[in-house]
């Protein structure tokens, strides 16, 4: 087989997608323009495809390759051989007819642009499948057909049936598609390539591979779901909720044949094994019989045709499953024939529906007189479906029966022929019923609408197909003989010597079976009424019910499970988190070798024991009294105090200072918030829960204590020596911790002040949001539940503050300036200053105080970040990285030498941010408080006895 690179192939594959872009736009230019814009692309693609016919007829494979994801082996490789050509012609040819038909079929209310866009998307996807050389690429298009068919089935989205059918099709074909992905990956691995041209050469490698079986099963799952094979057949009838042009196109001519295409495509490498024969052949046979059986009793024209399609797809599948070249050839021929007559049948059914406003066979009959053209077309094509001689359907059905007659199933030569014949009988029955109950018989007077033949545009497409039915049926060899040869060669991967296609093969078993089928069909139809009674008496296992039950159960079960797990109970989340952490820690600990530490321990003194006692008792008290919220705040203050003393004891003065200051500000914030919160926590937890939580937290505590002990009691080598050596010479400060903070790891500090800044902005934004929301109303209706002391701004406090605040501010400055060399620094200083101001607020009230000293909170934060940032950036001008510090010693008479360091500017940034952040937070909280309608004092204290007339309106 020779290969020929041809870019035309890419163009053909791309044209439908290009065509999909237009209808949506062209609809503004009218329905004709819309249809034309879609038809144009299809026609062009078809013409281009036909230009490749000579190469295909020469047995060449036309290829075109674009690298897409070479690392994965997924490439945009296209190939065209006989099989692809056949499908391409079907997709584009029938597509063109459908576009024409749909133009007349769809009503003015339907969004036609959308329809043609979806249709063209589907066409492109389908064409992609058959032209793909890369099996992963094929999967891509495969899934695309599922998606586009979902859109098309759900096109009438306002109908329940449309939505349900669309979802069902998506689910079932989606399932198959996913299986196919797995299958293709395995196949690729077994073959060593994802390119079909490669894979098709490696039959032995694939069939010997241990991956063959799983790959086969997964691929067949994909094929069977797509081609509606039993037991996945049930979605197809429900897809009939789509407009009839869609049913004709997707659900008879093209998409459902994708599975067949896949089986045909991989036939050379997958077939020929027992597994293939039994799985594919049996499935096909069963599907054929069941589909035909159900079709007989369907009153809906489209349902009848849908089950008929199921049956015919089964027939073709069975033929492919037989694994012989002759059977494969027969399969190919039936693919061609079924496409022709079934598309026409759907279109005629659509015409009937369009004209009579019903497709219920029970309400039809006698249409032969009212719409003779339609009736003729329908009868011709239905006869083909029944396999009556002189129609194309006869040819392939005959071949099928012939093949069936020679097939042995588990060493039984009768089973397959018997069931094939039954299938044929049933087929003939529903075909005859289609003719007799719709078109024959007397004219009725109760059609929902008076039927007559449609305009030419509407029956043109089925008419053309009906002509093809006859022509092929009468002159098979002349019309499709060489085509069949080409296709069959490409399917089987061999050069076959086919028998000539002819109507008369002599008296063969197949002929007998055929005759039996026709006679049986007529008999059954004549006894239709009792036959139907019998059917109605039978149990009807409904696949849809099962499907609905599965989906419902899945939805309910998953929803319940998911809601139980994610039920919004934070406390549970935390408990799970804690248990996970403890378990992970224990598991990790037990997974590696451990030796106890050997570091000598420090001996505790009395004070240490007292400190420990304090923490322990206050912690226990917190747990014990945690419902009394104010008390908890007092107790937590003890905890904080002792922690800072521990820091003192263990050589960390900076930490102690920070702890103390932060403690107070936190306390203030909590008190401010607690003002509006319930003052007590109700007793809600059950004892079980308390026990559970105690156990979890106890375990966590023990684990943490053990971990801390294990760590503290072992020696280690650390990078810290460097800091101790370089703090003064390199960083210019004697407080190593501070030098680390503003210099060695100044970047951390930069992040840290930004955290503070963001915190303040968040608090501010939240405060503002509360002013607009429900909170604002809650606050406006605030009722003080407890009587409050009348002592609002007590004199003594005000006076004390007048002295304390300047000192505190000075302490702030002092702490700031010394930070680089001694415990202190910008952060603590910022908090000291903030607390000094806070003291003033506590004394005289927020409004009074903040009116007298205006602190632009936002600017403080902004400047803080900017100062820190700009200080860091300043280093760039010295060619140094961000935050590189510089320091020097300045000597100005008469002042003694002092040090100037950029780190101090950085610290200033920290200072400003801290002050701004704390103040902004306080401001937001006070704003919330003022929303309760609090009055504002205009004097610093409630009563100033020294004022000349203290009771006079205050200044």
């Amino acid at each position, binding site marked *: 087989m020779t290969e020929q690179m041809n870019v035309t192939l890419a163009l053909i594959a791309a044209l439908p997608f290009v065509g999909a872009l237009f209808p949506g736009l062209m609809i503004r230019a009218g329905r004709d323009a819309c249809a034309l814009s879609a038809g144009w692309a299809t026609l062009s693609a078809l013409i281009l495809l036909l230009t490749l016919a000579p190469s295909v007829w020469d047995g060449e494979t036309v290829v075109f390759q674009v690298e897409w994801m070479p690392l994965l082996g997924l490439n945009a490789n296209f190939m065209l051989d006989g099989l692809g050509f056949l499908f391409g012609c079907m997709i584009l040819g029938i597509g063109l007819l459908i576009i024409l038909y749909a133009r007349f079929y769809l009503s003015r209310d339907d969004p036609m642009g959308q329809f043609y866009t979806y249709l063209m998307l589907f066409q492109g996807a389908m064409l992609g499948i058959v032209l793909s050389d890369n099996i992963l690429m094929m999967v891509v298009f495969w899934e695309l057909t599922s998606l586009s068919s979902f859109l098309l089935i759900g096109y009438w989205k306002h109908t329940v049936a449309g939505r349900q059918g669309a979802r069902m099709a998506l689910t079932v074909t989606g399932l198959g598609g996913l299986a196919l992905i797995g299958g293709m990956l395995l196949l690729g691995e077994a073959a060593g390539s994802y390119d079909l041209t490669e894979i098709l050469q490696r039959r032995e490698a694939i069939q010997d591979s241990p991956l063959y079986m799983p790959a086969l099963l997964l691929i067949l799952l994909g094929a069977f779901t797509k081609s509606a094979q039993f037991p996945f057949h049930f979605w197809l009838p429900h897809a009939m909720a789509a407009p009839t042009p869609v049913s004709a196109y997707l659900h008879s001519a093209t998409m459902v044949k994708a599975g067949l295409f896949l089986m045909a495509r991989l036939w050379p490498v997958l077939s020929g094994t027992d597994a293939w024969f039994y799985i594919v052949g049996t499935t096909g046979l069963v599907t054929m019989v069941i589909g035909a059986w159900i079709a007989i009793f369907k009153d809906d024209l489209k349902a009848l045709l849908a089950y008929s399609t199921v049956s015919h797809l089964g027939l073709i599948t069975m033929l492919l499953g037989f694994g012989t070249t002759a059977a494969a050839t027969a399969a190919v021929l039936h693919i061609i024939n079924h496409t022709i007559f079934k598309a026409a049948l759907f279109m005629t059914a659509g015409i009937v529906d369009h004209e009579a406003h019903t497709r219920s066979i029970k309400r039809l009959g006698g249409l032969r007189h009212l719409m003779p053209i339609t009736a003729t077309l329908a009868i011709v094509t239905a006869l083909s479906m029944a396999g009556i001689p002189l129609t194309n359907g006869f040819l392939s059905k005959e071949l099928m029966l012939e093949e069936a007659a020679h097939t042995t199933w588990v060493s039984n030569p009768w089973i397959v022929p018997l069931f094939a014949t039954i299938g044929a009988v049933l087929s003939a029955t529903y075909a005859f019923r289609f003719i007799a109950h719709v078109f024959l018989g007397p004219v009725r007077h109760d059609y929902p609408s008076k039927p007559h033949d449609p305009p030419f545009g509407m029956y043109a497409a089925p008419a053309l197909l009906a002509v093809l039915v006859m022509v092929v049926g009468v002159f098979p060899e002349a019309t499709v003989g060489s085509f069949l040869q080409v296709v069959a060669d490409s399917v089987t991967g061999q050069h076959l010597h086919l028998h000539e296609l002819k109507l008369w093969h002599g008296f063969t078993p197949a002929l007998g079976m055929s005759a039996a089928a026709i006679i049986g069909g007529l008999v059954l139809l004549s006894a239709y009424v009792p036959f139907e009674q019998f059917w109605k008496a039978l149990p009807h296992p409904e696949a849809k019910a099962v499907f609905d039950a599965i989906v419902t159960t899945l939805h309910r079960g998953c929803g319940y499970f998911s809601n139980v797990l994610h039920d919004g109970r934070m406390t549970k989340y935390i408990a799970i988190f804690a248990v996970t952490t403890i378990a992970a820690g224990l598991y990790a600990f037990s997974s590696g070798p451990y030796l106890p530490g050997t570091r000598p321990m420090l001996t505790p003194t009395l004070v240490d024991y007292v400190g420990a006692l304090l923490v322990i008792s206050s912690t226990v008290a917190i747990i014990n009294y945690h419902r009394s919220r104010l008390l908890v705040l007092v107790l937590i203050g003890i905890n904080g105090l002792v922690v800072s003393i521990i820091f003192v004891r263990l050589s960390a003065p900076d930490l102690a200072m920070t702890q103390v200051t932060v403690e107070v500000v936190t306390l203030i914030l909590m008190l401010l918030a607690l003002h509006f919160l319930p003052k007590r926590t109700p007793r809600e937890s059950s004892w079980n829960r308390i026990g559970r939580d105690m156990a979890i937290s106890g375990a966590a505590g023990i684990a943490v204590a053990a971990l801390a002990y294990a760590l503290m009691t072992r020696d280690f080598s650390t990078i810290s020596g460097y800091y101790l050596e370089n703090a003064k010479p390199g960083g210019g400060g004697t407080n190593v911790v501070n030098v680390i903070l503003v210099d060695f790891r100044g970047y951390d500090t930069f992040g840290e002040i930004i955290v503070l800044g963001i915190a303040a902005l968040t608090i501010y934004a939240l405060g503002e949001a509360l002013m607009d929301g429900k909170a604002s109303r809650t606050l406006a209706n605030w009722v003080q539940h407890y009587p409050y002391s*009348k002592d609002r701004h007590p004199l*003594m406090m005000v006076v004390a503050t007048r002295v304390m605040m300047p000192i505190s501010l000075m302490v702030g400055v002092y702490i700031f300036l010394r930070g680089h060399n001694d415990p202190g620094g910008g952060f603590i200083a910022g908090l000291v200053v903030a607390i000094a101001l806070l003291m003033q607020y506590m004394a005289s009230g927020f409004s009074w105080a903040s009116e007298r000293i205006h602190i632009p909170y936002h600017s403080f934060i902004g400047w803080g970040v900017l100062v820190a940032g700009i200080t860091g950036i300043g280093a760039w001008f010295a060619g140094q990285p961000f935050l590189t510090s510089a320091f020097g010693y300045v000597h100005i008479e008469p002042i003694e030498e002092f040090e100037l360091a950029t780190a101090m500017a950085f610290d200033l940034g920290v200072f400003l941010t801290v002050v701004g952040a704390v103040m902004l937070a306080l401001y937001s909280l006070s704003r919330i408080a*003022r929303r309760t309608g609090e*009055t*504002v004092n205009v004097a610093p204290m409630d009563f100033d006895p020294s004022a000349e007339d203290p009771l006079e309106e*205050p200044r």
Partner: protein
Amino acid sequence: MELIAEILVSALLVIAGLFGLLGSWGLVKLDDTMRRLHAPTKATTLGVGGVLIASMIYFAVFLDHLTFHELLITAFLFITAPITANFVAKAHMHRDIKERDLPPTGGQYGWAGYDEIGDAEQPIDTK
């Protein structure tokens, strides 16, 4: 000189320790919050004060490091202790003591915690 300092420092420390302990003991022993208030307010201030002065002397004499830091803390405590005590007393009275259980002020107005003065409408801040 050093000996005197040593004796002085030691004495101060011992006294401070005793008074500190006394303050906390009073807190335990006395049976009413108002009474308990007396113990720590006074005793512990002296306790800390003693320690602070001892520290000052100690650093000045033994480490040749004359510091006045400690004065600052002392001042701080002495300024704040009455305010703290006053607040604690007021909080206690607010919670546990009715106005009628207190002696009257003898003036025009009642005690600050119970009596609002200057009923004049004050602005409601809406900022």
